[in-house]
């Protein structure tokens, strides 16, 4: 199987604090990989190193055999990787449809010139883009809310919208930061189903999650991070019986 994303000895230091310490991770094509760990373990920081928000102090990020370490965020997105955020970062006062259309931004066939003069090429690009976005919204049951403000959606729907927005960029690899946070059991089950569908459609998914049920049922492999370090990796069964992991969670049910 082809390796899609590879982290080589990533270290991120803030001032004196080592937030991510010598982390090496690989994610293969069409895999669903989880990253778990207690709060403050450095999981989101690891994501930020991958997506270019931070430039890692040490180490390399390889995406599809290309070194993307230190590239700007927007270029990494163009390379084919998109993310969602732990604390939902939708474009709140814009409509649901516009949120997805912004996701499709980099693939637009129009540009400033065609836009400013309202030329046919802009109209064609706009029409195609809107159609495609509506289909994406339909996939997640959000098409009926296309004209609503993004922040008027219920919490679970906002999380789904963030995933749709990431998909709209045309990414092959989706990084989901706690996609099930704040969801009830029903919504979580639907989300799991949705992520499985994504994999069937050819997406690769790398996710951070606290919901153990979701992680254990969904992921092919799991990495466990604690205080910056990776302390374990393996299949869900291996992780559940790993003593280091149990210690890290200190009695929490794994």
């Amino acid at each position: 199987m082809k390796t899609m994303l590879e982290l080589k000895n990533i270290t991120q230091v803030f001032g004196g604090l080592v937030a991510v310490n010598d982390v090496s991770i690989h994610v293969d094509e069409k895999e669903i990989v989880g990253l778990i760990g207690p709060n403050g373990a450095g999981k989101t920081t690891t994501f930020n190193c991958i997506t270019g928000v931070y430039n890692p102090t040490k180490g390399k990020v390889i995406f599809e055999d290309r070194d993307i370490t230190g590239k700007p965020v927007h270029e990494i997105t163009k390379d084919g990787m998109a993310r969602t955020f732990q604390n939902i970062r939708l474009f709140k006062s814009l409509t649901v449809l516009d949120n997805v259309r912004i996701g499709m931004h980099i693939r637009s066939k129009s540009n400033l010139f065609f836009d400013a003069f309202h030329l046919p090429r802009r109209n064609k690009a706009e029409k195609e883009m809107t159609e495609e976005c509506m289909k994406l919204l339909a996939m997640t049951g959000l098409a009926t809310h296309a004209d609503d403000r993004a922040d008027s959606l219920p919490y679970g729907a906002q999380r789904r919208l963030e995933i749709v927005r990431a998909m709209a960029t045309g990414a092959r690899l989706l990084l989901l930061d706690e996609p099930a946070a704040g969801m009830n059991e029903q919504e979580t089950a639907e989300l799991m189903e949705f992520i499985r569908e994504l994999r069937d459609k050819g997406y690769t998914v790398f996710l951070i999650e606290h919901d153990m049920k979701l992680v254990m049922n969904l992921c092919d492999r799991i990495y466990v991070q604690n205080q910056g370090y990776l302390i374990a990796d393996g299949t869900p069964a291996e992780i559940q019986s790993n003593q280091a992991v149990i210690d890290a969670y200190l009695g929490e049910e794994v």
Partner: protein
Amino acid sequence: MVFGVLELTNFAHSSIFMLGGYVAAVALRGGLPLWLAVILSIGTCALFGMLTDRLALMPMRKRGASRVSYLIATIGVSTFLQNLIMLVFGSEAIPFKEVFPRTQFMVGNAVMSYLQVFTILLTLALMGATSLLVYKTKIGASMRAIAQNQTAAKLMGVNTDLVITFTFLLGSALAAVAGIMFGMYYYSVDLQMGFTVGMKTFASAVLGGIGSLPGAVVGGFSIGILESMFAGYVSSGFKDAVGFIVLIFVLLIRPSGLFGQKKISKV
């Protein structure tokens, strides 16, 4: 100071600084003794600072307004105050009565005047008092708490509104002192002073690195020296532009300033 606590640049601050200078200048001209003029000036500024917060910014905090709204609101207040000053005191520069004799004396090789000594001593004293207040008192602790996290501070039982208003009051009082010193130094106050000084302070802060105290001092000196050199060798008409030009170059070459650290954005 207000900026440190609220992460909010207060455009109205430069107008309050100007107000301080004007009130003192007019009071001195009217024959009041220095101490009374100073108290009057500080009192007026503190009052206006408090009003700015209570009338304009507090309702916005209640609503959870965006940062841009705060910024625009303080621009509005600043414009309002500036024109109020113009209306009340007229648009002519007002001479500032001499308080200290102009005689100078030598310290080693440097020529100093009483005024300069007084300015330096007063600045040091105020800096000391302010740090004492911020680091040693209860209200100072509350200020720092709010600077860290407003919501958390509120949950911990800090009366955020009261503390923020107090911060404004204090900041405005300090601005009044600065306004008076400006008047003493240049022997007059005018409508440009708020803008010019605001711009220079900002340029110094950026040059030195935002949030760095030694940076601000070094930045301030560098800008001052550059300005005099520019006025002497090139053209005095452009003197006030120097700070700005330096600012643009700093931003281009080293946005974090001389001593600043790169800010980490949280995601």
